């Protein structure tokens, strides 16, 4: 099995607030990892470190065999240079809680702007890819629409299509359904289930426990900047070992 992502001993503080306390994660090709945990435990910060929206204080991050960041005894954290970063950038994408679509661009442009203007994909080809992604998302009739004309669930599906446009090796989701009305979460979870079936490698921060149990191969439970427990998804949800995970899961029972 080949590792798509390998993060080791990640530490991250904001001022004197240590948010990630020595966290490691390895993701194999085709694997789906769910990250659960109470709010404020550092889940988003972890994804943001993985996607370079935040810089780490120490540790190492590898995408395949490309090093995005490593820590040197003397000079501290060293990040990949621009050319390397551009290559690495293509390997991952992130789906945000609140979509972050570009409001002034049509759905089609939202999906094709990065392939065309960052990675030099020919326009016709980028649009063809975008159309097939929109079909996959059940939005083939929305290519010309603007984000403000779509429901939240449709916007999130567009943002997933946008994230898939460069055919990333791994896709991160940060609470992809949390900004949606409850009746709209189902359509997003269905899309993610479909991606899992197609063996898309994914790391998903979620509060949907039964979804995590059914879709993920592995679950990581974070609390207060630590990984408290991790393991097989069904096993971890059905037989939690630590008191903190038991307490956390009991909040979702009803």
């Amino acid at each position, binding site marked *: 099995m080949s590792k798509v992502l390998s993060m080791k001993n990640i530490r991250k503080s904001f001022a004197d607030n240590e948010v990630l306390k020595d966290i490691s994660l390895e993701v194999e090709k085709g694997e789906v990892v769910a990250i659960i945990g109470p709010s404020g435990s550092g889940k988003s910060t972890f994804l943001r470190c993985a996607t370079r929206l935040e810089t780490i204080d120490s540790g190492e991050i590898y995408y395949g065999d490309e090093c995005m960041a490593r820590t040197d005894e003397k000079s501290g954290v060293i990040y990949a240079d621009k050319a390397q970063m*551009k290559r690495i950038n293509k390997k991952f994408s992130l789906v945000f809680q609140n979509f*972050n679509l*570009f*409001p*002034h661009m049509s759905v089609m442009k939202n999906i094709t*702007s990065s392939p065309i203007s*960052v990675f030099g994909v020919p326009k016709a080809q980028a649009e063809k890819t975008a159309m097939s992604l929109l079909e996959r998302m059940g939005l083939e009739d929305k290519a010309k629409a603007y984000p403000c004309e779509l429901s939240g669930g449709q916007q999130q599906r567009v943002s997933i299509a*946008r994230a898939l446009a460069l055919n990333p090796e791994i896709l991160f989701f940060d609470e992809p359904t949390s900004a949606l009305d409850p009746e709209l979460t189902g359509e997003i979870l269905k899309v993610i289930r479909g991606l899992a079936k197609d063996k898309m490698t994914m790391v998903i921060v979620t509060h949907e426990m039964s979804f995590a149990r059914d879709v993920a191969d592995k679950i990581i439970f974070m609390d207060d900047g630590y990984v408290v427990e991790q393991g097989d998804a069904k096993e971890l949800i059905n037989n939690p070992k630590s008191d903190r995970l038991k307490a956390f899961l009991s909040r979702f029972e009803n």
Partner: protein
Amino acid sequence: MNSAQLLLIIKRLAEGMLTTTEIFALTLVLSLPLGFVFCFMRMSKNKALSTVMKVYISIMRGTPLMLQLMVVFFAPSLLFGLTLSWQGWRFTAVIVGFVFNYAAYFAEIFRAGMESISPGQYEAANILGFSKGQTFFKIILPQVIKRVLPPVTNETITLVKDTSLAFVLSVMEMFTEAKQIVATTSSIAPFIVAAVFYFVFNAIVAAVMGKIEKKLSYYN
């Protein structure tokens, strides 16, 4: 007053209108980009730079434009002992004064516009691999332009009226002409004609800006 006299007034004011339009157009064309430069300096992480800009902007906004025009005009001779006998200096001083004053106002408008863009837009651009420059020109700027359009329209309408301040440096724009004709003919008609000119000018400005706003209303 007969119609021949009225025609003469209109003819002279129309000539002044040319200069008025020049001041207006030059100021707008130069102060909008300069406003963006000032906005970036104001928003700079460099504390000294942003403080200098903050003070500069508050002086520009806190003192009369008329006084600023005088300072620009007299500064070379009073501060540096230069004698500027050059013909075009009056007009140049007016343009310099207007551009630096309006750029300060525009900088604050742009800053508010920039700050209203959610950080998520930058983050999405970052994830998609856009460079800093691409992010600004493709993602941020188009949204900022839409948001700042209403306040920029207000400033532009103010600018049309402010061009009349050029009279303090005796630049022969429309208002200066009107004053002179009134002084020689002791008729109020030139002022009324001038008012009509300004009013029509602003109606055109408002219509043009309205068109642009409408063009950008395809999203919100």
